[in-house]
């Protein structure tokens, strides 16, 4: 059976762990991954709780296909209430952790409470222990992983660095050094629980009906679908590909979103990364291997991904690949989300250059830029203030119009003034500004649909959000652009029951609405679905998008159409009819 049927529940306050059966009714309605973890959190978390208190819960959730040979199913959902935004937060981490957890016998781990002193969670099949992390606390995520590997051997570990320990809203969780559960302060949830790391080893296996036939069928799908021209960009280039696309389309964030093209884009684009490439690296069961392991000078990283090249490169005016690689490596080690860190440093740069407040960093100056991850993670020097993120900084020092965040989560690498649909995607994403709920730039800025109109954009964003919701609940990696029909075909084989594409579409809509319901319960509504002022009022100055902005009235119309098509009211609240329709 593809699910193990078992959930591990660990109470860090009492030190006790128990197992319980997977809620099968919820598994049918939400599948796993994103949807199922949000369901558990919706049912178990009281509204209004402090995300950094012991009352928050951290859920590590696999999917029904995790641990099988189905391509691109090796990721893990990591979910909690977000310390950065106060919304629901689900992240996705690659690497090899998820299957190991499944082989250990668990569909998920739910971590509750708070340990009295730093611990790490040790899981080896049935053996579950909280071990002292006294020797690890204060160390970076990388050193932590190395030490645990040297101690335990053949385990997969995910760990926080100093940023998570210090409860930063931009703290992430790292695994195998360079894979992250990145956004919304997920690392701070671990830090607030005194949980330094989770290490797992599993010796079990997963069975599916007619496994040889299943494998043969999936090998054919792997060749004809997963590795088709649509997806092979991940192997040949990886995400740095997108630097060229964004530059051409005029949506490459430059100098704190002051512009959409960067004069040194060709120092940090795909060709530049390939010039320092040592090896391609894949997550578990992925034939595409999007990871780029690079070495330049004394530094190395598996990356940089597009978001890092954009937010920590062009957005900081840094056209020096070695500097971006080092900044990336430092963030991965200290445990900082590169999107939020890049945005925060860029904001500090603009504030300094405009003479509003001197944070000691300027666009294009690599030396101070490279000091930032350490100062921020350890809350030292100017990092003490910067660690709070752009929204808090703007509240205190000004510059609100160009504090680039939605719901206090910093904006990813696509300039909304050059892709109005991305503006809507950022405004309506469940966890704050996010490009992974809907990525409509693919169709307008990077496609043949007019990016500077609101026509059809609401529907496009809704369809993408729902598609990704079910995709990340079944757990397929973003980079396999598979159809819902294909998803249904594979799930039907693995779960021994007929699942249709229609059923999956409903699950997608249900998951997205449940996330919204969680947020509604926390007091979120229309007023929180807006973009920073800069987007509505300042025109871009160079390239393809010269002179462009996203007028507020157009955004309002697009947002209203979005609510209407979603079946929500004018305040952005889900109607009773819609709740009933989706069994919420």
């Amino acid at each position, binding site marked *: 059976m593809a699910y193990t049927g078992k959930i591990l529940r660990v109470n860090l306050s009492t030190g006790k762990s128990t197992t319980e059966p997977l809620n099968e009714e919820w598994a049918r309605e939400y599948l796993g991954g994103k949807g199922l973890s949000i369901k558990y959190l919706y049912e178990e978390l009281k509204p209004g709780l402090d995300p950094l208190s012991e009352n928050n819960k951290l859920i590590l959730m696999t999917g029904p296909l995790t641990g099988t040979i189905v391509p691109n199913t090796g990721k893990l959902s990591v979910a909690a209430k977000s310390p950065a935004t106060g919304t629901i937060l689900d992240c996705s981490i690659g690497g090899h952790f998820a299957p190991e957890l499944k082989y250990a016998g668990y569909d998920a781990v739910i971590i509750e409470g708070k340990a009295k002193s730093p611990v790490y969670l040790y899981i080896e099949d049935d053996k579950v222990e909280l071990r002292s992390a006294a020797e690890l606390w204060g160390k970076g995520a990388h050193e932590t992983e190395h030490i645990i590997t040297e101690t335990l051997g053949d385990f997969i570990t995910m760990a926080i660095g100093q940023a998570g320990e210090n409860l930063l809203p931009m703290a992430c969780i790292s695994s195998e050094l360079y894979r992250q559960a990145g956004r919304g302060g997920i690392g701070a949830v671990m830090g607030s629980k005194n949980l330094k790391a989770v290490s797992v080893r599993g010796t079990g296996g997963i069975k599916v009906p007619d496994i040889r036939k299943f494998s043969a069928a999936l090998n054919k799908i792997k060749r004809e679908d997963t590795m088709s021209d649509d997806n092979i960009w*991940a192997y*040949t280039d990886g*995400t740095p*590909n997108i630097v*060229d696309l964004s530059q051409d389309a005029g949506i490459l964030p430059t100098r704190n979103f002051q512009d959409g093209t960067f004069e040194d884009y060709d120092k940090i684009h795909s060709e530049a990364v390939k010039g320092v490439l040592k090896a391609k690296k894949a997550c578990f069961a992925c034939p595409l291997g999007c990871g780029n392991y690079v070495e330049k000078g004394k530094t190395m990283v598996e990356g940089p991904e597009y978001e890092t090249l954009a937010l920590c490169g062009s957005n900081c005016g840094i056209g020096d690949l070695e500097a971006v690689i080092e900044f990336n490596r430092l963030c991965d080690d200290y445990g900082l989300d590169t999107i939020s860190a890049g945005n925060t440093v860029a904001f500090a740069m603009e504030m300094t250059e405009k003479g509003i407040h001197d944070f000691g960093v300027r666009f294009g100056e690599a030396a101070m830029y490279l000091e930032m991850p350490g100062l921020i993670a350890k809350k030292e020097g100017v990092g003490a203030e910067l660690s709070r993120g752009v929204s808090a900084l703007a509240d205190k020092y000004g510059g609100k119009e160009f504090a680039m965040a939605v719901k206090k989560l910093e904006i990813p690498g696509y300039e909304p003034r050059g892709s109005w649909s991305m503006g809507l995607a950022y405004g309506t994403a469940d966890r704050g500004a996010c490009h992974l709920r809907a990525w409509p730039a*693919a169709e307008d800025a990077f496609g043949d649909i007019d990016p500077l109109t609101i026509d059809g954009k609401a529907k496009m964003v809704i369809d993408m959000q729902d598609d990704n919701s079910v995709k990340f609940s079944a757990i397929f990696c973003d*980079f396999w*652009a598979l159809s819902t029909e294909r998803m249904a075909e594979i799930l039907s084989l693995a779960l021994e029951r007929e699942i249709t594409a229609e059923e999956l579409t409903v699950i997608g809509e249900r998951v997205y609405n449940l996330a919204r319901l969680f947020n509604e319960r926390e007091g979120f509504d229309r007023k929180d679905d807006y973009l920073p002022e800069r987007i509505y009022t300042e025109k871009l100055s160079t390239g393809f998008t010269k002179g462009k902005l996203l007028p507020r009235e157009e955004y309002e119309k697009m947002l209203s159409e979005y609510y209407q098509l979603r079946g929500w009211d004018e305040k952005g609240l889900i109607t009773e009819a819609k709740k009933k329709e989706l069994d919420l």
Partner: protein
Amino acid sequence: MILVTLQLRGPLKKYGPEAKMFDYEIAAESCTVRELLEQLKVPTSSISFIMIDGKKADLDATLIGGEMVIVNPRVSGG
């Protein structure tokens, strides 16, 4: 006979001489982007967007020689 300069980006490189940029001869007085891609056997489903001399263009745009044509690949995530 007209000449255009072509950039096939990312995984689309394999449809050309595997160079960053190259000159391509078209045996006609003019041709559409669609026809050019057909000649190179680039499947249109693999393309995200096309730029001609720095402006977005569609598959039916006409080339008359001397243009810089950039063909961008499809990507799914970010």
